[in-house]
């Protein structure tokens, strides 16, 4: 039988500490050459009938983790547009699927017999895996006594960052900035009881940085939110997308660790069979010379060594491995708890090969 889970069930069984633990182990497996990824690939087709640069997006990531007997395909199928909000161009995924919903799935397969094990939405898992990787990096790169977290953004990703950072450091205060005052106030009111820490919404982006020990950018901004000169000695900074921190951080930081080595492609349709590379995409050369998170976790490279170092975890792209690892935890726990709906695996396999 193949297990079908919804986000509520995923959330019931997936705790942030479990996410951190399995991911750290998965990074060790990868550092030892016992896991692998297929590079993320984003295909975007412009939809001329839509306003605000509307597009259809299809994205895929793959990871293989034999230690836990799983591989994972994470995919999303979305209609997006790019409105300008408070002067910044943003990307918004529209709830275009029936019932006003979004489509993002993790498909988990067995590396033992190839069979499909489980299908689950990627929403909660996605939030946890990004934040967990940032927190694993902070565990090695932030000061041991780091207690003030500054957050840019007030959406799902930002919420995950607060939860995950609270697992690796004893936080006393969180400061949050996002352009819409109502959003940052709501974030503070909702997250404070979850992590049991004071959360202060601040009116200016610079105020997030002042006095912070860890600064996490977790926004959907299309423009820089953290300017490198604001960062002070002893701070640890991280991001979830390229545009959030200006590239001066690469000169300013004393120690930089990256998540993955190869630039993934976002290709925009409208010219040729494979479209064209999105303007401003990463180039793999930009990542040359920086150690990987998995190398730090495996003890092959050092984490923070001095109190006044500026450290930067450049979360330059996700890995399919994260979905295999976290997907395994969810699958195992959901099976144990008797959650989800099962369908015959025969419906998803066939009598001849292609």
């Amino acid at each position, binding site marked *: 039988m193949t297990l079908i889970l919804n986000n509520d069930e995923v959330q019931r069984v997936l705790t942030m500490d479990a996410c951190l633990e399995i991911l750290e182990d998965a990074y060790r497996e990868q550092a030892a050459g016992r896991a692998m990824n*297929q590079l993320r*690939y984003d*295909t975007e*087709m412009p939809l001329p009938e839509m306003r605000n640069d509307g597009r259809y997006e299809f994205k*895929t990531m793959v990871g293989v983790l034999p230690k836990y007997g799983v591989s994972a395909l994470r995919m999303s199928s979305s209609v997006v547009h790019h409105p300008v909000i408070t002067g910044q161009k943003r990307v918004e995924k529209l709830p275009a699927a029936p019932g006003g919903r979004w489509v993002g799935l993790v498909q988990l397969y067995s590396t033992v017999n190839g069979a499909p094990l489980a299908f689950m939405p990627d929403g909660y898992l996605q939030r946890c895996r990004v934040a967990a990787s940032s927190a694993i990096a902070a565990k090695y790169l932030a000061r041991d006594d780091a207690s003030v977290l500054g957050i840019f953004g007030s959406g799902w990703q930002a919420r995950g960052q607060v939860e995950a950072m609270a697992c690796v450091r004893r936080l006393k205060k969180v400061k949050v900035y996002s352009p819409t005052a109502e959003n940052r106030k709501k974030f503070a009111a909702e997250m404070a009881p979850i992590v049991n820490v004071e959360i202060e919404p601040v009116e200016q982006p610079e105020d997030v940085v002042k006095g912070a020990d860890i600064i996490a950018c977790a926004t959907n901004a299309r423009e820089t939110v953290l300017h490198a000169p604001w960062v002070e000695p002893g701070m640890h900074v991280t991001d979830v997308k390229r545009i959030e921190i200006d590239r001066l951080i690469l000169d300013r930081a004393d120690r930089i660790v990256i998540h993955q080595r190869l630039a993934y*492609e976002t290709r925009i349709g*409208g010219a040729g069979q494979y479209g064209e590379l999105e303007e401003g995409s990463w180039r793999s050369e930009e990542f040359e010379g920086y150690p990987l998170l998995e190398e730090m976790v495996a003890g092959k490279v050092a984490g923070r060594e001095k109190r006044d170092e500026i450290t930067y975890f450049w979360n330059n792209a996700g890995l399919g491995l994260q979905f295999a690892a976290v997907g395994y935890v969810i699958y195992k726990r959901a099976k144990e708890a008797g959650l989800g709906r099962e*369908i015959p695996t025969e419906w998803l396999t066939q009598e001849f090969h292609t």
Partner: protein
Amino acid sequence: MSLILNNDVKSVLTMEIKMKASEDGHREVARSAAVCGRSLTDV
């Protein structure tokens, strides 16, 4: 909502349908109204 198995595919898919759909797909790509993902081996 549908889950289509091999027997179902076999019972509805004719060569004529395949050729017509494929030809239409190629026309859409030719006028840049469709796009394909690239295999990593193409990079």
